[in-house]
């Protein structure tokens, strides 16, 4: 596809002199944008490794002093590139320790007894966006992919336990009719609608799980919804996810190629990189694939 080389060129042009990528053209390196760009362009992961914190986590962006969900994404990058053994080990350990606020028994008690407007099982927790908050779908899904990839050959008991809890949490939060919202499925008795991106990423985390009816319904929802999606970000994640479920993505890729053109109109570097990954689907090893 001739478009891809132009998109790659665009991505290279947008690389900061410090080696990473920002989201929207500033000089502030975004770990998310850098992870996706490194994967999309097959670039060196040196800048990414340089941003790792002592405790094994990554911040959301350069200059930030706190750990973030981007650690899971960074571990996926290093897994895909088979790079940075020690960095990967430390990231894995950090992910095992990190948990949503519901993991604390006091919060579980609060959600079980007092705060029942949001319906979910607080026993099943995953990963938060940032320390001190509850579990949400996208950080949990990326953490699951990262841990499953890292422990593909041998999974320690602690990792297995967290994996089961995380998978349980995703399945507990699935929307009625399939798909995932950002975190919950029912608030104040009203069912929430699924989001395309959250559904696509949650399905990636469940790619190697037994095809329960929840997973199957969500997959059907995503297949149907992705046909009408006109946004580059959601369409790209849909392609990446559907491909892992051996669904045909050729038509979606053609639509995506039309939407992105030569990439100049896409200001968000993370979106541009995700689009490149989606267009390269089938031509390269899928960076979020989990060995069964």
């Amino acid at each position, binding site marked *: 596809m001739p478009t891809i080389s132009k998109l790659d060129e665009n991505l290279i042009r947008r690389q900061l002199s410090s080696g990473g990528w*920002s*989201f*929207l053209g*500033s*000089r*502030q390196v*975004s770990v*998310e944008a850098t992870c996706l760009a490194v994967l999309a362009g097959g670039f060196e992961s040196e800048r990414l490794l340089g941003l790792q914190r002592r405790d094994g986590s990554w911040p*959301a*962006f350069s*200059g*930030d002093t706190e750990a*973030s*969900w981007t650690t899971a994404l960074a571990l996926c990058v290093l897994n895909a590139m088979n790079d940075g053994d020690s960095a990967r080990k430390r990231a894995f350990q950090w992910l095992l320790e990190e948990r949503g*606020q519901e993991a604390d028994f006091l919060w579980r008690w609060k959600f079980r007894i007092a705060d029942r*407007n949001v319906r979910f099982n607080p026993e099943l927790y995953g990963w*938060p*966006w*940032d320390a*001190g*908050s*509850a579990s*949400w779908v*996208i*950080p949990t899904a990326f953490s699951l992919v990262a841990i499953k990839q890292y422990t593909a050959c041998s999974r320690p008991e602690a990792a297995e336990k967290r994996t089961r809890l995380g998978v349980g949490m995703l399945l507990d939060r699935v929307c009625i009719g399939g798909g995932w*919202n*950002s*975190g919950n499925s029912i*608030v*104040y008795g*009203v069912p*929430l*609608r699924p*989001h*395309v*991106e*959250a559904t696509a990423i949650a399905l990636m985390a469940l790619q190697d799980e037994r095809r329960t009816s929840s997973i199957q319904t969500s997959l059907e929802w995503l297949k149907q919804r992705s046909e009408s*999606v*006109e*946004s*580059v*970000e*959601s369409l790209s994640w849909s392609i990446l996810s559907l491909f892992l479920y051996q669904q045909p993505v050729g038509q979606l890729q053609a639509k995506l190629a039309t939407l992105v053109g030569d990439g100049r109109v896409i200001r*968000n570097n*993370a*979106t541009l990189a995700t689009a490149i990954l989606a267009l390269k689907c089938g031509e390269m090893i899928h960076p979020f694939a989990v060995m069964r």
Partner: protein
Amino acid sequence: MKIDRRRFVGSATGLAATAAVATEWVRPKYSVSYKRPRSQVAVLNASDYSERLERLLFEGIRLFDLPVNGKTVLLKPNLVEYLPGPVNTNANVIGAAARCFLRLGASRVVVGEGPGHQRDTELVVQSAGLQPHLMEPRIDFVDLNRDELVRVKLKANYSGLRELWLPRSVLDSDFVVSMPKVKTHHWAGVTLSLKNMFGVVPGMKYGWPRNLLHWHGIQESILDICATMPIHFVIADGITAMEGNGPLQGTPRELRKIVLADDPVAADATCARLMGFDPLRVKYLSEGSRFLGNLREDQIVMLAEHPDAPLRPFSVLPEFSYLVNE
């Protein structure tokens, strides 16, 4: 009575501790005040979102003599989700406002938003129908969830957060316009111009949604954010508003009003009255009236029609029934 040294030291320590606690309790939690003796509000009648809206808005904004000539104006609408119903600030109101500020001499208008639940900002902008308005010259859009961030010390301390990373585009703009959708809110009671500023807190740092603010208290976080990022003007979309289980799952309510104000507290208090609520019972509004603006009717000058309470108050979830003005 003879006071020995031990008793004296004990009493003095007790007194000092009491004084310290009392001082902390009495001392204001804010270090700025945007209150003026009088605030101005204009409530405009608008039956729909047609082309007539721009003219109405232009005439309305002109009543305020705003200092926007040559300035960068940031419009902060309320774009939350791609859901049907009156969830988002209507795109025609945003587009009309942008063109009005350009006509009034603004050098550039930036529409800035960071949707709170939905990571795909493009999808929200598309679904809201905003894209055609962004094609016009000198009107740009910035995704506040992914803008360059600056660490900022908060100018109030209700939440205990003390500092936040905030988007440079908002911090660098000369004139900030909050453009809420008039809605009830299942956690805050109402969501209006002050609550709308939650959308400047970036998802790339705090996630989707900004859970940290929820843990630290929604009402408290609103006060801290608005103390730190002052709102210069409000354009509230109350043409088709939302009642019941807002801000996402509520039902449409035809209010047929646009509320303009040079003070966010006065704007929100007026909207609350239009909804049939007592603004003093909205915690962040009553507390905000100490330093963010004026709440009392005698401190608000009405430039257009005087708003009447509705015949039927907006419906709310049972836990917010205390808001309703008896």
